[in-house]
């Protein structure tokens, strides 16, 4: 395959990644709503450790465990941010009595 062919393949994979990341974010949104109702904290370090350990275990390379860990740390950072927005929106809706 030529460089162009490989790049096309990368573009394809990137689109799938975006789709999957957003699918993951939908779950995060739902969790955010439930957490707000239950009054659970936004940051749950045990759960985040579990996620990171899980993806490291699932890793078959060539990315190192540390690389996978760093990538997923960023995913968790963004998930927390999404969840915060959802929790704030939920709180605002409750305050308006909706």
């Amino acid at each position, binding site marked *: 395959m030529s460089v162009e062919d490989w790049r096309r393949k990368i573009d394809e994979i990137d689109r799938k990644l975006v789709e999957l990341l957003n699918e993951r974010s939908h779950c995060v949104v739902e969790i955010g709503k439930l957490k707000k109702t239950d009054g659970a904290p936004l940051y749950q*370090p045990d759960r985040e450790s579990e996620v990171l350990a899980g993806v490291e275990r699932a890793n078959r390379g060539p990315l190192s465990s540390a690389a996978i860990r760093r990538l997923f740390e960023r995913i968790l*950072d963004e998930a927390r941010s999404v969840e915060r927005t959802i929790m704030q929106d939920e709180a605002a809706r409750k305050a308006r009595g909706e």
Partner: protein
Amino acid sequence: MVVLMQSGASEEQIQHVIDRLVSLGFDIHRSTGASHTVVGAIGVGPDFDPRDIEVLSGVREVVRVTQPYKLANRAFKAEDTIVHFPNGVCIGGPEIVVAAGPCAVESADQIEIIAARVAELGARILRGGAFKPRTSPYSFQGMGEPGLHLLRQAADRHGLLVVSEIMDASQLPLMQPLVDILQVGARNMQNYHMLRALGAARRPVLLKRGLSATIEELLLAAEYIMSGGNHNVILCERGIRTFETATRNTMDIAALPVIKKLSHLPVFADPSQGTGRRDQVAPMARAALAAGADGLLIEVHNDPERALSDGAQSLYFDQFAKLMSELRMIAPAVGRRLA
């Protein structure tokens, strides 16, 4: 804000830091390195005290990325602030504005002779102290209120503006009608009570950098004045205290471009205070203009050897005349002009 964890910080310590930051409302950007974990915090407000995080166990260093000053910050106002005066003089525009005069007003004759000469040579502002903050209590302390009146009268006779130092907030009612620019001396840069009072003043303020103040501290002092509603603040580099003894102070020329980058406020340079020696005033004045100063504060005396204060750093009239003609040649090279 960036939180750098110690090498070997435990996962519990890192989680505790993240937990604190999340509960303070920040978004987190965690990055686990080979030896250090770095936690970036996004959405930090200017009133947040980074020491709250610095004291947590396992934290090595906290670095603020955003500056704690807002109104003085160029990030919040990109265009240069220009201070306008009723007689048409503008500070912070294309014209370099020179303020010249004696360190202290000594007599009606003295201030009249000096005002006439500096006006003729192109100065726009007459400087002169009526209240002098001297290092020694036994040195000449200034003429006080009569000195202010003499300064005003001499300036009016020659179409000059007046800048004079205010030493205490209580002097504001006396000074406001008599001066065009209220000067805050280096020793008063962190007199926050007075800075607050100047925030309510209706006159522009020339704020001198303290002897051992960082640029950030200078900008925070400006923030005090501006947060009170007075946005006409002119900053002034006047030399800082270093280990060097050959000069009275070390003129921090580099502070000029640094301040111009960080802030939209106009910046003056005071090479007389900055060096403390007559022979070094002109070279530093030329350098300051070339480095981006919007104006200069220069001590000129009709008889420096008999001056009651700071004679050693006051220029003779012919030296001032020569300096002005040199500055007129430099100004166009940096896109400025001089009256």
